[in-house]
């Protein structure tokens, strides 16, 4: 059971890649990339988990010593979430621009740049 989060995160990554391959709508492509991002974030945050560990906040720590989860992967995950937010927002903005010019979000129909 200890490896469950890793398995789930890799399933998420696979779902994301499947979305990228099978869908042609630009918004759905952005969603696919977001799903991959979520999978990677889950992978990162589960790296820091210690069995039975408590949240790494020193002022809340009980008097008796107990294991804490690693705080660094949580910081990494947070940063990755922020970056993912920025990339998703930018991709959606480009999708809106493309829609306004071409009137469609179908990746097959908007291809002006070939070869």
């Amino acid at each position: 059971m200890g490896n469950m989060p890793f398995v789930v995160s890799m399933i998420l990554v696979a779902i994301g890649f499947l979305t990228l391959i099978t869908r042609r709508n630009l918004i759905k492509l952005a969603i696919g990339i977001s799903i991959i991002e979520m999978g990677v974030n889950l992978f990162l945050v589960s790296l820091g988990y210690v069995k039975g560990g408590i949240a790494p906040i020193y002022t809340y720590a009980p008097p008796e010593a107990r294991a804490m989860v690693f705080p660094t992967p949580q910081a990494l995950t947070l940063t990755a979430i922020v970056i993912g937010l920025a990339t998703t927002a930018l991709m959606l903005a480009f999708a809106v621009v493309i829609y306004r010019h071409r009137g469609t979000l179908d990746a097959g129909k908007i291809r002006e740049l070939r070869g």
Partner: protein
Amino acid sequence: MSVIVRTVSRVVAPVALAFGAYVIMHGHLTPGGGFQGGAVVASVVALLVVAFGCERWRKWTHVLLPLEDVGAMAFVILAFLGVGATFFRNVLAGSGGLFGAPVPQLGPNPGALNTAGTLPLMNWAVGFKVIAGLGAVVLLLALFGREDG
């Protein structure tokens, strides 16, 4: 949107604003911080856009975009404060002044808000940046998607 949605938004918006401010303010003591609190506040923008339409918030973009710059600049300038030793050096921690109180002992305690030096200030800088940036993203995407743009 219907009158139910609008009424509920009126009630929820101030509460969400206060919760966002709390999350930013206590970023150095409890889970949370600038980004998370900012995202909570920006969700209020999304709520208002959904409930009342984006048109009446159009002029807010003139406030949000400069605010985003101010937040980002404040963060870099706070990092520059430490350049006497190194960049990002926490010069205010333990200095006795603003956010410079001594840290309480380990063990269960509510934590002291007036600690951690430049970290709370950086949380506020990031908070403003995220409130303004994320709010502007939501608002501009809503405005941009309309037929008349």
